[in-house]
Structure formats: C-alpha cells, structure tokens
C-alpha cells in the first residue's frame, strides 16, 4: 500500500435532484499523511466523505478507497477505517460507554488500553446517558470510538467544532500519534490553525470541485505576501511591477501586497530606493482560504444534504 493512494477520486459527480453537489471532484490522499479538506459550507465536503463511505452512490467518476470500491465493498473496507461525522447523533437511551463499545466492536474491536486512556484524557463520563451529553461530549464519544479502533484510515468531518481548546489539543496529540504509527487521515475542518498545525497537504474545494491542492508551502507560493517598507526616499516604479496590488505610498513609506512569485522583483525596486525597515508577512491560511472562496460565501450556496 505504500505506493498507491489511500483515497483516489477522479471526476466524481453526485447530484441531488437538480443540485449538482459534486461536479467533477478530484482528491488524492497518500498513505501516511494528514490531508486537510477545506471548503465553505455546502462545497461538498460531507457529500464526498459520504460517497467514500458508500452511504451515497456516485453518479459518475472513479472512487477508490484503500484500494477497493466504497459502494460494493463497504463493509470490508469499513473494518480498516473509522469515521467521525460532523454532527454526531447518538441514541438517547444508550450511555457514552455503550456507544463507544458498540461502534468499536462493529469496526472489529477496540484497543482496550487506548480506550481507557482516551476516556480519561477527554474527561468523558461514560456512564451518562447520551441524551444528557452536550454537542462537545457527543463528539468526544465518536472520537474515542474512532481513535481507540485499530484502523489504517481516519475520516474526520469537522471533528472538533464542539470541543474546547484544551480538548482540541488532546485531539491533535492523538491524530499526530496516529500518523506516527503509520495511519492516514482525511480531516475536513474549518479551524485553520488546526489544519496548519496538523496537515501535510490540503485540498480546497468549492462548489463540488477541487480548486487547489498541495502542501501548505506550495499553496502559499500561489498567493500574495504583504509588504510594509520604510525607505530612504520616495519609491518609484512600484506600480509598474506586475503582481503588485493595493499599493499605498505615504511619503517614504510603502505598503502593498505582491504575488509571491513576483516578490523578488518588488523587493528589488524597494532596494533601489534604499530600505530603512522592512516587514513582510507570508499569507496566512485564512487569506488563502478567503481568496479561494471569499466570493462563494456571498453567493450563499445551497445547503448540503447532510
């Protein structure tokens, strides 16, 4: 399994009635990596994961999961993965401990020591009935069940949206640990700090299509760096440099953003004017995010069926 991808999706299409939820989506998750899966609400993240789980049937395209067909070999493949849904709904009459055991056993068994450790680290009371759990506690139940299972792949759909920062860092420790043991993770998330902290590669999707994929470094390269400089004299020729945006000149001070590929030329122009002080900031993931789908948020896309 070391060479082939763990998840391989090509030109995946899935429609709900007239709404095309996935419109030729590509996704490639390699063994041993934590792959961030980003996109605005309704972009098709959950739909993709549900196709990968064989809950939804694809309309067209190729989907391979752990080398198998997720629709026809669902049960066999599911032994090798654990899934945490974005909205964890539990049976009100079962206790958290019962649900952990139920899901774990259905996957083919739990690591008892890790189960006990996780319950303690997540500060979960497993004897409480699920109806009395908060959203965060329901999520913990699903996370404990997933992280205590012996699997190769974790499919996590916004798993930390209800957790407090302390629990979030516990979660991150365990996901790191899972990767160190050789596991692969597909992590859909809105918490950019989490993605930056955990992910080796990310895919950004929008309106059912993958618009960007690569390591964070590669993606940064495609975006703009913001520059603020104090110069010996007034800058000249900056507006002639391609890729410079939002230029503001105030006496000897210049502020602008520049496409990262043109950074060298822009700094060259500044250098000619004589640099007194210079701050430059690489794009944050947030800027990356907003650049890719800032306008999509205003379009207010249709709700995903989840």
């Amino acid at each position, binding site marked *: 399994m070391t060479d082939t991808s763990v998840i391989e999706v090509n030109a995946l299409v899935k429609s709900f009635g007239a709404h095309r939820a996935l419109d030729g989506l590509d996704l490639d998750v390699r063994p041993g990596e934590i792959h961030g899966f980003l996109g605005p609400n309704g972009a098709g993240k959950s739909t993709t994961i549900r196709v990968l789980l064989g*809950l939804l*049937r694809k309309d067209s395209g190729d989907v391979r999961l752990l080398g198998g067909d997720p629709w026809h070999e669902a049960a066999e493949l*599911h032994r090798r993965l654990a*899934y945490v849904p974005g909205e964890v709904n539990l049976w009100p009459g*079962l206790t958290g401990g019962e649900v952990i055991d139920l899901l774990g056993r259905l*996957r083919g068994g739990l690591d008892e020591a890790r189960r006990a450790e996780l319950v303690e680290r997540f500060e979960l009371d497993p004897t409480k009935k699920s109806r009395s759990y908060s959203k965060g506690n329901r999520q913990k139940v699903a996370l404990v069940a997933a992280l205590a299972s012996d699997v190769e792949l974790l499919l996590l759909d916004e798993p930390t949206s209800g957790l407090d920062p302390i629990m979030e860092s516990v979660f991150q420790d365990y996901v790191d640990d899972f990767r160190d043991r050789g596991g692969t993770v597909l992590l859909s998330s809105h918490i950019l700090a989490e993605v930056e902290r955990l992910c080796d590669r990310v895919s950004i999707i929008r309106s059912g299509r993958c618009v960007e994929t690569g390591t964070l470094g590669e993606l940064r390269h495609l975006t703009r760096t913001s520059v603020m400089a104090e110069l010996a004299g007034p800058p000249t020729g900056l507006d002639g440099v391609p890729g410079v945006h939002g230029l503001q000149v105030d006496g000897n001070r210049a502020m602008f953003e520049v496409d990262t590929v043109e950074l060298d030329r822009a700094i060259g122009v500044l250098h000619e004017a004589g640099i007194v002080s210079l701050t430059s900031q690489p794009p944050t993931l947030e800027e990356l995010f907003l650049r890719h789908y800032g306008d999509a948020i205003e379009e207010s896309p249709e709700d995903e069926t989840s």
Partner: protein
Amino acid sequence: MTGTWSFVRAYLRRDRWLLLWWSLGAALLYWSQAVSVDGLYESQADFDRAAASMESNAGFVAMTGPARALNTIGGQVTWQSAAFGAILAGLMSMFLVGRHTRAEEESGRDEMLRAAAVGRQSTTVATFLTAAIANVCLGGLVALSLIAYPLELADSLALGVGVALCGFFFSGVALVAAQLTSTTRAMYGLTGAVIGLAYALRAIGDVGTPALSWMSPIGWYQAMHPFSGLRWWPALLLVVASVAAVAAAYAVFLRRDYGSGVLAARPGPGRAGARLAHPVGLAWRLQRGPVIGWAVGMFLGGVGYGTLGDDVESLLGDSDLAKDMFAQSGGALVDAFYATMILMLAMIGSGFAISSALRPHGEEEAGRIESLLGTALRRRDWLLGHVAVTVAGTGLVLLVAGIGMGVGYALVTGDGSALDDYVLPTLSHLPGVLLLAAVARLLFGLVPRAAFLSWLALVFCFVVMMFAEIFRMPQWLQDVSPFEHLALMPAEDFRWLPFALVSAVASVLSVAGQIAFRRRDVR
C-alpha cells in the same frame, strides 16, 4: 412574579390547539357514553336486566368504578367515563407541565428566559396557572356537553368540576415530579406511575376493599356519586390534595439548583453488554421500550374485552341493529362478537407493527445510522435486525392480547379453556398485521419521504372493517384489505390458503423494501 402573566399568555397561545383537542376529546368521552346507552335498550326492563348483569361483573367494576344507578343514562355516563376522564385530565396536565418546565430546562431554553427580567418562579407559577386554565376548560366542556344533552344540571356540573379537580391534582403531582427528576422522560414516568397507582388503588378498592378507593383521588371523584345521590364534600379532598401537591412542588423548587433534580439521573453501564453490537441485539435495545409497553397495553386491552364474558347478549340489548352488527357471519352471537373484537385488537396491534417497521426510518431521520453504517456493519444486517424485532414483537403483542382475552374471559366465567379459544384466533391475524408493516418497510426502502403514508393503509383497513357495509364499498376495494381474506375466528373456521397467501405477499413486500434500501442513498 414579574412576567408571570406574559408567560401564561405565551403558553396558552402555544398550547391552544392542544388544549382544544384534549378538552373536546374528554367531552366526547362523556357525551358519547350518553348517546351510546340512550336507545340501546328497547324497554326499561331490558335496561334493568343489562344493568344488573354489569353490576355483578367484577371485571367491569375494576375497569370503570363503583356500580351505581346503572339503569339510568346519567349513572352509565358516570360509571363508564369518570375514571378514564380523570386519567385523560391527568395525562393532559402531565404533558402540559412537562412541556413548560422540565423539557424547557433540559433544553436550556428556560435559562435564556430566566436570565431576562422575570421573577425566578414566574415560569413555574405560569405553568401551573396554564394547567389550571386548561383543566377548567376541559371540565367546563364536559359539564356543558352533558347539560346540553340534556342531563341533570347539578350532576353534570359535578362530573365537570370533579374531572377538573383531578386535573389540578395531577398538575400538582407533575410539578413535584418536575422538581424531583432531572429529565423529561423520568418526569413523565413518575407522574404516569402516580396516575396509574391512583387508578389501580380504586380498581382494587371498588371490587372489595373500599378503604383503598379512599386513598385514590380518582376514587374521591367517583365518591361524589353524580346521578346517584350527588354529594359535594369529596371534592374538598381533591382541593386539599391539589393545594398540598402544589405547595410541595413550590417548596422543592425554591431549594434546588437550576438544571438539577432532587433525584440524580441514574448513571447507566459504562460498558456495552455482549449482545449490543449484534444487529438484533441493537434493534431490540432500541425497540424494547415500545415492545414491552405495547405488550402490556394489549394484554390489558385483551383482559378488558375478555371480562365481558358471556354477557355479550344482554349487553347488546335487544336492538336489531346491535345484533346485526355482530351476527353478520351467522355464527353464535358470542363467537361473532369475539371474532370482531379480536379483529379490532389485531388492528390496534398493527399500530405497533407499523411504528416498529418505521423505526429504521426514524433512526435515519435522526442521523443516527451514518455512524453505524460507517462501520463494518452491513446495511442488510442492520435492517434485518430491525425486521426481526418487528416480526417477533408483533407476534408477541398479538399473543399476549389473545392471552389477555382468554384470561379475562376465564376470570369472569371460570371457563379455563377460553385461553385456547382466543389465543389462536388472535394469532391468525398475524399475516395481515405484518403485511401492513411490510408496506411501511417498502415505502422506507423506496420513498422514505412518504413512509408515513403506511399509516393510511391501516386507516383504510379500519374503514373497510367498520364501514364497508354502510358505505356500500365495492367488493374489489374491500378485497384490498388483507383482513378481508383471513378467517374471522372463532366465528369462522381457520383457512390455510388465505393465511399462506397473505403471508407470502407480506414477505415479498418486506424483501422488496429491504433490497430497495440497500440500493439507495442514505441520508
């Protein structure tokens, strides 16, 4: 107390339809008794004879209340309706109080309100006031419907006042329960148990130990003796008990913390039992509450019908209509009567079968199956677990209904062989009941959005049973109902062919539904 009246107004607006239906239902319960007795007997002598046979039937007395003046319409109305009316008022009060107290607190909505500029107790006080208004409304409609019938003014009024006071009392009990428990479910459980106990105490008391009836608020209501020497003083007992219950609730309310109950929520097991991860074990765990509840209810229903014993003839009176209703099949009247009652029980049991067959749909709607199907559990096995519970549960529900009928009959007549006579006939309707469940399953598999339509199938079968003759329904339309084909035991002999055919159709529909589910998207 700031804001109390705004809450009362808001609650009444939220509950107005609910209150109307409960009140109309209660009024209908009383009024319909008057209508059904009136004119059933051709002469007063017939009426006297029927009354005498009812009076001597201990099963009847246990079910309804002390037998007084049963040869009058008013006496019959009181006897047949008072206990059930009190239960109705109790249930209405319980749901109403639960909705506005424990459920609000559990969901956290109440927190938002309490943080606003309102008095600490205002939601609780407003809830009791709303319940009081609801019960006045219910009692008022009962009294009005009887006065309008027309029955005697004072006695009709007493029936209305009494049922409203019972409602007050149970509202108080519900308020106490809302303080003691920490979940809505537990609160309903506790209040329901008190209502059940009040009913049971008077049942045992009325049959032979009058002291016990005096320990039950429902007993006090019936001790007012409407239409048979009305006396008002037992109503005072109800007033005092209601005040005591409300005062107790208030005292506990002031002493407890927000969100908590006096009785802590019972912790459950921290680990799952061995069977939970088996599809059947899981389905059973999720459905066992309804299965047990329905089994108990159907058993009691069976006992209720069974205790009519052989009195059927005198109960029905001499009116030709009544006899025609049951003797269509030409058998002996008692057999014909029980054949119809058994069919009726089977139709009621279909309620369980359909709701159980729709349980997978409920699980899907609640978003609880994606985690499950994300494991190595196969769709087929998950659904089969639920199918197994539906089929076995339906069998159980019908079986205990038949046993209940036999037991009730044997209790009254001393004829132990009745058990055989009624168990098999009840079970003989199993294929028809399961066919309705299979329709529900097929809809769940093919068009889950329309799954609720399976209830219409039951309504249709019911209409065919009750009104086919009156509406002059064409035969082919009647034949759509599976129950039209199965033998009406014990009036008719068992027939293998329709039994096997209906079973086969049910199986085909069920399997088709399961296959359809395996091929469709899961929500």
